[in-house]
């Protein structure tokens, strides 16, 4: 039984009196101790998916319009706001892209960790503070006993992201959602943070949903990957399978677009056209205007999800394993 089961998730944005679908029919499962990666370009719906799972869409112009999110034996979309809050920060925690702004600038970092602990655990101030020091030590903040009284602006971006991780791990969550956790960080710091996340996962058995635009980060950290384009999962497979048997023309295009450090490439095989905006109406397969394989059928008919290998699904009329 998977820890997290998302099925047929539909999310829409309300603008000017109408609902624009931004996530359509997204389904995936994440088991304990597993890292699930969602990769895609801006506006593909990856961040909204993660916010929907966490329950942070409430109160915005964005809402879940269909599908289910099953977590640890409970249906999250059916829970009351209060029950939802009991899970947030406790069984399920989240870290965000911008470590520089994700912490409240007016409170000491220790107090912000203590706040999470005391929200979900029956702890005294003293106990919570001791635990916060332990957590800072766990995320390898040097001199945790002293740094606990620092304000966020006194720390570097990498350290703040560690504090965010400490805060997220405070109540031993079963699931950690990381939305572009290293995008704002330098590569050397990125490596440290990713290593730390992997280390914590192996110690605590946390499941991780990692959202990223960077195929390299996904390849190095995830067990399974979903590639999203325009609100749908274009291709999904175990990481090894995906990178050795890439099928979907979008996934392949994405990979070929990346300039690599290990060899010289004269010209990059760029995907033509541009990333569609959310208010564009696209018939058939959303990728067809940019796809080299596209035929008349792609323009009119949206491909269904189909298996091309064990656990390897794609949404494309033509692509097959080995067709590249």
């Amino acid at each position: 039984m998977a820890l997290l089961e998302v099925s047929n998730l539909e999310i829409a944005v309300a603008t000017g009196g109408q609902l624009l679908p931004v996530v359509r029919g997204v389904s995936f499962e994440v088991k304990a101790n597993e890292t699930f990666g969602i990769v895609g370009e801006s506006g593909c719906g990856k961040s909204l998916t993660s916010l929907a799972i966490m329950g942070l869409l409430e109160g915005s112009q964005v809402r879940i319009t269909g599908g289910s999110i099953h977590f640890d034996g409970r249906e999250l979309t059916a829970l009351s706001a209060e029950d939802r809050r009991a899970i947030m920060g406790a069984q399920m925690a989240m870290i965000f892209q911008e470590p520089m702004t994700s912490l409240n600038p007016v409170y000491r970092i220790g107090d912000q960790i203590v706040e999470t602990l005391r929200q979900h655990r029956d702890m005294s101030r003293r106990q919570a503070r001791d635990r916060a020091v332990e957590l800072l030590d766990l995320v390898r903040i040097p001199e945790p006993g002293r740094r606990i009284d620092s304000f966020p602006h006194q720390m570097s971006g990498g350290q703040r992201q560690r504090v965010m991780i400490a805060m997220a791990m405070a109540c031993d969550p079963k699931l950690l959602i990381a939305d572009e956790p290293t995008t704002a960080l330098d590569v050397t710091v990125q490596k440290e943070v990713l290593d730390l996340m992997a280390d914590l996962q192996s110690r605590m058995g946390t499941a991780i949903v990692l959202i990223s635009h960077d195929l390299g980060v996904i390849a190095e950290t995830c067990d399974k990957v979903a590639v999203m384009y325009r609100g749908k999962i274009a291709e999904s497979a175990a990481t090894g399978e995906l990178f050795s048997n890439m099928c979907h023309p979008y996934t392949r295009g994405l990979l070929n677009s990346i300039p690599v450090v290990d060899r010289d490439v004269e010209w990059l095989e760029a995907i033509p056209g541009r990333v569609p905006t959310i208010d564009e109406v696209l018939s058939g397969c959303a990728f067809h205007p940019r796809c080299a394989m596209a035929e008349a059928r792609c323009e009119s008919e949206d491909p269904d999800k189909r298996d091309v290998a064990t656990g390897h699904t794609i949404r494309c009329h033509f692509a097959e394993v080995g067709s590249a």
Partner: protein
Amino acid sequence: MLVYTIKRLLALIPTLLAASILVFLFIHLIPGDPAAILLGDTATPEEVAALTREMGLDEPIWKQYLLWLGNVLQGDLGTSVFFREPVLKVIGSGAETSILLATMTMVWIVLFGIPIGIVSATKHGTWVDQVTSGGAMLFASIPTFWLGLYLILIFAVGLGWFPSSGFPSVSDDGGWTNLRYLILPSLTLAAPNAALIIRLVRASMLDVAREDHVRTARAKGLHPAKVAIKHIFRNALIAVAAAFGFTFAALVSEAVVTETVFSLPGIGRLVVQSILRRDYPVIQGVILVIVVLYMVINLLVDLAYARLDPRVSLK
């Protein structure tokens, strides 16, 4: 903190000096002989000649300024033409009324402005927000004296709940119950300013609500009320605190009108009466006192600001 305060006080000196030059020049900008202006219409030529010598009016203007500044620093702001008393004493006699009025007004502003602002922001987009923020804007659009006149008409003349004008000192008969004389004036004075604070609290909270760290707070599973107060309002308070300096300036301005409407023996009415009486030494003195006070209050606001926002370094 102490070092910072001293530094800030030192940094005030240039501005204060510049402001004092303007205040000093005020007398000289009035057409006519300054000595005659300062002594008023009833002065004899001998008196004028004496004061001209005393003030060094035959000296170059910078010497006159230094002489004047020296006197000011010793507490000598000149003599009122109308009262024939030292200006400082005249101002002092209005201080009790004005200070009590300002304090009571600030209490109303905080009492009404902040809670209504919070409600307006947390109910953003609902009818509650529309009524409170629209109502606040309406109150900010009412001329102070008009509001004062109608409060007198309704609550003093009509219902007879409060006295309509004047203010006996709290040391007179009645003691602190005399404060009831200040209820209508302070409400009049508070109305437009509380309205501005409501709008400001609302706007800053809506700004803060969009910041990333609020999402972090929600992700902790905190109750929305706790997020609103502990995370959104607390951060919005930084911007609100910064505005209290301006509120003071607005209070001084509107106190002039309010004290006139309610015939309160405060500094505000003193300014207006002195202008009408051409009692220039008093006008000059009051302006100087208010400018100094305003700068001190702005300094206090800055210090409070630094305490509210740890990012402001106190170096």
